[in-house]
């Protein structure tokens, strides 16, 4: 009956754990494996202007919507005493900083972290079918425009090829007279893009200037690059205003769409925007985590990633302890290995994480051996139990310091990490081992000591697994499965592996 209860409870726990995990993997796209690193771009826009005296300041700055092919990992605004609002009208997104008054040069920052992510779903774009106002060219220009358009028309089939033809003609290395005339007032790439838009309008083709930011690692004082988009009757099609190549450049994000100004400041002068781009690598998991957050799932509210990084690191270790505990349950109740203290080997294994395995085992054995020798001497002095325990603890710490010092002097830097051993645990181990040695003989003591060490090493090997570490941190609900297995083992009444050896006399007949 009780057994059935445990089984049902375990089943429920497994269902919850696996169900949650399944949902996170399939719906939220969290990776089951600790996958490789992803490139993360940090784009920073620095806005600088001089405030006018005693005037309210309002700065409207265009910021990117979720760019296609990228995931926003993080986004923040730095603006000391400014009020901040963001707006998204379905096509443009902007940040608006406002302050009642300010003095001198003002600096505002906008920072966005992007990761390349082919799975990212771009935000839906809302834009009405564009209408083209009939352009009004100056007298001289009109004939040139008409000539260019006419020539292109004869060499193209549809809107797209026509636009390409116009652009190729305008960008020709040896321009004809018409093109030279059109080009003569163009000073900046922006002018050029706007010119093309107005020329295409003459052929009733809707076009718009779009500003993109090229993601180039280490770029400072970068600027937005004007790009061109034409409407081919169905969709907007990006095109390079210089080469007439279709599409946006590789490694670029759309910053601002349309003619409106990228930065609009009232109450300030000498406005200037500087863009800088840096690239670093980040774990894919974190990128996936951010993406999941953007999907707005409630479950992500309870993600460990939302904790401060320092606490996260603590939990990365803590969440492995249940796995170690489960290992102990198996080793003790199914295998039947004897060790000092129930979970002591886990603490030793945690220390091994810092010292590395070989050094850990060597230092642990050395400390226990030295401690035991001294403990036997203390036995000879006939001390009371608690003072003797205290003496052992003091000696263990002194030995640790000594080993650290010696190995440092000898140049074994690893030996210094002996300080990470849990010394109270060490002292207790030495005391227990000495008692067992006295009462049951050195064989039993060494057996149990070796048992503890084997369990600690196995625990270390399990707990240092990258894969397990990733699983328990990203999917802590899987620990419910571990709990379920532990509960089930709590009702395990089969033999222990070592009992097969213990009862071998009975088996022999």
């Amino acid at each position, binding site marked *: 009956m009780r057994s059935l209860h445990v089984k049902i409870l375990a089943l429920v726990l497994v269902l919850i754990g696996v169900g949650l995990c399944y949902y996170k993997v399939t719906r939220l796209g969290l990776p089951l494996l600790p996958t490789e690193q992803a490139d993360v771009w940090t784009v920073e826009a620095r806005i600088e202007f001089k405030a006018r005296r005693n005037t309210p300041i309002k700065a409207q700055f265009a910021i990117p919507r979720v760019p296609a092919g990228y995931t926003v990992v993080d986004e923040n605004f730095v603006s000391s005493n400014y009020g901040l609002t963001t707006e998204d009208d379905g096509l443009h997104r902007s940040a608006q900083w406002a302050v009642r008054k300010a003095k001198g040069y003002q600096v505002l920052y906008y920072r966005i972290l992007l990761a390349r992510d082919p799975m990212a779903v771009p935000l839906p774009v809302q834009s009405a079918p564009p209408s083209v106002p009939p352009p009004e060219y100056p007298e001289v220009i009109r004939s040139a425009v008409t000539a260019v358009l006419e020539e292109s028309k004869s060499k193209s089939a549809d809107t797209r090829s026509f636009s390409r033809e116009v652009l190729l003609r305008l960008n020709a290395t040896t321009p004809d007279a018409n093109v030279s005339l059109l080009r003569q007032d163009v000073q900046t790439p922006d002018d050029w893009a706007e010119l093309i838009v107005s020329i295409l309008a003459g052929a009733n083709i809707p076009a718009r200037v779009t500003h993109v930011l090229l993601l180039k690692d280490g770029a400072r004082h970068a600027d937005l690059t004007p790009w061109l988009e034409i409407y081919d009757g169905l969709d907007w099609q990006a095109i390079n205003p210089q080469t007439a190549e279709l599409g946006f450049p590789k490694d670029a994000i759309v910053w601002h769409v349309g003619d409106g100004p990228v930065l609009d400041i009232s109450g300030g002068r000498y406005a200037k925007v500087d863009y800088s781009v840096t690239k670093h690598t980040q774990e894919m998991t974190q990128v996936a985590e951010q993406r999941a957050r953007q999907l707005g799932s409630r479950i992500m509210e309870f993600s460990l990633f939302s904790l401060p990084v320092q606490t996260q690191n603590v939990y990365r270790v803590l969440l492995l302890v249940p796995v170690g505990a489960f290992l102990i349950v198996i080793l003790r*109740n199914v295998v*039947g290995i004897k060790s000092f203290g129930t979970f002591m080997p886990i603490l030793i294994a945690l220390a091994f994480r810092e010292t590395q395995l070989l050094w850990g085992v060597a230092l642990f054995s050395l400390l226990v051996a030295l401690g035991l020798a001294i403990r036997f001497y203390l036995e000879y002095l*006939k001390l*009371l*139990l*608690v003072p003797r325990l205290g003496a052992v603890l003091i000696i263990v710490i002194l030995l640790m310091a000594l080993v650290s010092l010696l190995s440092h002097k000898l140049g074994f830097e690893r030996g210094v990490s002996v300080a990470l051993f849990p010394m109270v645990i060490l002292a207790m181990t030495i005391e227990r081992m000495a*008692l067992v040695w006295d*009462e*049951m*003989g050195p064989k039993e003591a060494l057996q149990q000591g070796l048992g503890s060490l084997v369990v600690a090493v196995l625990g270390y090997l399990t707990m240092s697994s990258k894969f397990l570490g990733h699983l328990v941190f990203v999917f802590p609900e899987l620990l419910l499965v571990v709990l379920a297995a532990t509960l089930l083992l*709590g*009702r*395990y*009444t*089969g*033999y*222990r592996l070592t*009992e*097969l050896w213990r*009862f*071998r*006399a*009975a*088996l022999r*007949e």
Partner: protein
Amino acid sequence: MHWKDRLLPWRRLRNLGIMGMNQRNADFILPYNPRSNFPQVDDKRLTKELAVAAGIAVPKLYAVIEIEHQIEQLQELLAPYAEFVVKPAHGSGGEGILVVAGHSNGRYRKANGRLADKDELGHHISNILSGMYSLGGRPDCALIEYRVNFDPIFSEVSYQGVPDIRTVVFRGVPVLAMIRLPTRMSDGKANLHQGAVGVGIDMADGRTFSGVWHDTMVQHHPDTGGAIAGLQIPHWDSILGLTARCQDMVGLGFIGVDIVLDRDLGPLMLEMNARPGLSIQLANKIGLLPRLDRLARMAEIPASVEERVALAKATATIW
């Protein structure tokens, strides 16, 4: 033999009815031994008091040492007794037991013939008090009690120390018994894993089978060479009755009861154990499970001690 039984050792153990540690804990100790009753067997002083109240014969308690300060008066305290045993009230596995076979001029002769002075004895008691032998290292007290003059029937088959009879009692019915004979290796202790010889006893008539020493079958005591098998244990029925009554005394369903045979006083209950060991199965070459299962299935166990002893003898035919 079925091929699976040949290949899979655990199936053979299961067929032999041998109980493992996990099963003992999960199926017998947890359901039959309420935690709240454990102190009655873990604290030997309390066990002794309960036994005296229930009229169960135990070695007489001479003195209890509870605080360090009392050790100073040890000599005066022990003066009237030529022989005595010092043991921790919360000891387990025979640890911390010191047998004194005589003393003169402040020197104590231990059972193994070595001499100990007053300080050594005091240090031993002080270790007991500070919890060296108790579970979890909790402070303990030391009991000083009557040293059993063991029945000469065992003198041929034991090397120092006191041989004792371990009986496993389930629901008030003794199911399996063995006699534990100290050897030179076990240093006078009656603990099988320390090297004592375990000898199975036929529950029906109290005759010994052959013994087991470590994992080998022995017919003779390894140190004295005395024959082990076929010994008739005296007072067998009263031993069974004594163990059956222990269950009522402490309210634990699955216990081990240790009995010693005194030359003059007959069977005395030495201590009880709420977590009886499993080696008794090896000594008897019988698994506990068939008998335990039979008793567990019984709706009611007779209340009278005589009926339970009869039931124990009937159960003994189950293999």
